[in-house]
């Protein structure tokens, strides 16, 4: 937690957003049942109880991605973060959780902290995570074994770091898109939306 009493700096904003992604991704994995619920443990964050995975492999993977994401957020080179849920049997993409990140690049030039209270940011984050939890009501059931992947949309001229590689956008054909709430730290603005495959009857 950034304890900038005076305001939000670019670094603090990057940390807040990365933290949100870490908890948000865990919530989505728990809600959609990608991993069995007994591999999750309860923690308290943003004044609500959330689920965090205890699987070491998964933890390492998430830590890698989130740390790299934090760097990119600080450089304002990341545009979107997408969590893609694929069915293992048919290799079809069933769900797509997309988070658009809009960065105010003037914060890079001026190092003056912005005036926005951390509490209000946390309120907004809390409402977004609550919406993610509530989205279970309208999302179709994932009956087959599924796995997930994290995609990051970055600027074209960005240097690809070690172990990262280019991939396709993994778009769902014939999808329904639902826009969720957004939150902003006054430097980074994050829009959330979920796209799911239209289930034909």
């Amino acid at each position: 937690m950034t304890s900038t009493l005076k305001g939000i700096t670019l670094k603090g904003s990057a940390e807040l957003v990365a933290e949100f992604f870490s908890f948000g991704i865990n919530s989505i994995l728990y809600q959609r049942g990608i991993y069995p619920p007994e591999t999750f443990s309860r923690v308290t964050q943003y004044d609500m109880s959330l689920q965090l995975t205890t699987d070491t492999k998964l933890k390492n993977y998430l830590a890698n991605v989130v740390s790299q994401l934090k760097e990119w957020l600080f450089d304002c080179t990341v545009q979107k973060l997408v969590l893609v849920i694929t069915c293992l049997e048919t290799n079809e993409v069933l769900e797509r959780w997309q988070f658009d990140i809009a960065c105010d690049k003037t914060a890079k030039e001026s190092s003056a902290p912005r005036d926005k209270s951390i509490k209000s940011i946390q309120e907004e984050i809390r409402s977004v995570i609550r919406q993610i939890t509530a989205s279970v009501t309208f999302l179709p059931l994932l009956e087959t074994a599924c796995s997930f992947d994290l995609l990051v949309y970055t600027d074209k001229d960005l240097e690809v770091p070690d172990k990262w590689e280019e991939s396709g956008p993994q778009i769902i054909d014939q999808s329904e898109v639902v826009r969720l709430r957004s939150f902003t730290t006054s430097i980074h603005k994050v829009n959330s939306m979920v796209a799911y495959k239209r289930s034909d009857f």
Partner: protein
Amino acid sequence: MDIDDDTTVFATLKSFKNFISLPDASLNQGEPAPAQSNPLQRQYRQRIELLEAAEKVQSKTQQIHEDQEKRQMAMSHKRARIELEKVASLSARDLEREVDRNQELLGRIRRLEEREVESSKSLSEQVEANRALRRTQETLNLRIMERDAKLNASYQTVSILKDEIRELKQQIQSKQNIIANQTLATQGLQEQMELQQRKLALQEQDVVIVKNIKSEVAKVPEMEKALRQLREENIYLRETRENVTLLKEETEGLRRKVERMEKLKEEMVTMELEKEVCVCVPVCACGGGANKTESRLIQQREIALKQQNYTLTSGCRSVERSKADLQGELLVQRSKALEEQKKRETQESLVRRLQKRVLLLTKERDGMRSILESYDSELSTNDYTPQLTRRLREAEDVLSKTQNHNAEMEVRGDTVCRSAVDKDRIEELEAERQRLEEQNNVLELRLERHDLEGDYDPVKTKVLHLGQNPTSMAKKQRLEEVEALREEVQCLREHLRSLQTGGAVPAAVGDLGVTVNLPPSQEILDLRKQIESAELKNQRLKEVFQKKIQEFRTVCYVLTGYQIDITTQNQYRLTSLYAEHMDDSLLFKASGGAVGSGGNMQLMETDFSRTLGEMVDLHLHHQKSIPAFLSAVTLDLFSRQTTM
């Protein structure tokens, strides 16, 4: 302790009594034997007496000891008694207390029993109440079950309704999407229509513009004439200005002259007056005759001067009037010149504005052309493009012509009329621009929708992900599992084949592959053991049977004299022990099913049986006894053998 002391006391008393009894016996026994006068016997008696004395002494000492002990015992006994009495008293008290306690306890017991009775009554009442409550509870449970069932039914109906609602919503959404697509298509078609209409309008406008320009061009020579007139007027005015300046100079000169003239006149008048005065004085002095002529002369001079004055003043006035007129004309000319300048400036500004607008319009036109080209490329309809290009070229030609005319007009000096036409055209272009903006919005909406779905501009963005991500790992795992399963299946099939072909060698499992794990289960091992044991038993039984049958056959051979062989089904060959040749044998056939069930045995014809025709007739045909026949044959052969 007391008891022990008592027992010891009794024990000592007993021993004492015993001891007392013994010496009497010994004494009684000792006296009748003094008559025997053996020295040995005496010695023996002496010894015995000594012993007895010793014993007596001992007994006395013992007695003393025992008396002492007795006293001690008595003392102790007394003490014990006292203690016992104390203890007895204490125990009596205790008894009393305990009796009291007992009574109390009995009382308590009674009370408790009463309470028990009461509590049992209350228990029974409560049990009854419990039963009643249980019944009510059961009824309530039944009601609750019914309500639960109703609730479940209602939940089910609710879920069914929700599903139906979802379905309907999805249908609605799909239909809305279809509608949106169709509206977009219709909009596209409308836009195409509008484009074509606009093109037509543009062409018409261009035609109108051409007409206007032609009319303007027709007006040009008149304007040239007017220009020439204006220039001539300008020249004339300049000349008049020069004349005016000249006239001014002349008037100034005249003024000065007039002034001088006036001065001269005044001087003349003063001079003449002085003269007259001088003359008058003497004249007055001399007479008045000369005054009249001089006065007439003066009056004539005055009149003449006055006439000159009047003429001069009139001339001055006329000159001033002409000067005023000329000045008025000057002013008018100046104002005209200023107006002309202003008009020129306005025209120049208008020309600049028109130039700018023309530049903007050309840019807009270029942009619209590019949009149109993009739309045309999207449409890609072969029927339209050549016509459109033709129209475009025509419009471009018209536009270029108008631009040339515009340039010429600017060079010559424009009028205000064209700006109105340009304004109309500008308004139309602005309306077109608004429509294009709406199109732009629609396209932006489409872009946003694609963006929501995850589409991206490959020029600006790229998509990255970690190579070691859970999906790829899961896929790898799946592939590995599938591969492993396939290998296992193959191994199992081969194993099955090996088993079917025979010789299930459990050791071969290891040869087929490391990955295949066929754990030899306990059942299989047990069954194998059972099989082995059964086979062993079988073998043993076979051996035993073989032995027994061999034995039996040898015994039969030995005892009956015939070796019985089963040649084929139901055919038996008997070879006698005393057969002369090896081939001599009798064949019997059993007919009528199995031998055990008592089928008929019949003798078959053999070489040997032919030689026994008599016996066959006798024993088989007449006596109908095969054993008799066989024994006869044996006897016969035996007799032959022995004799031979």
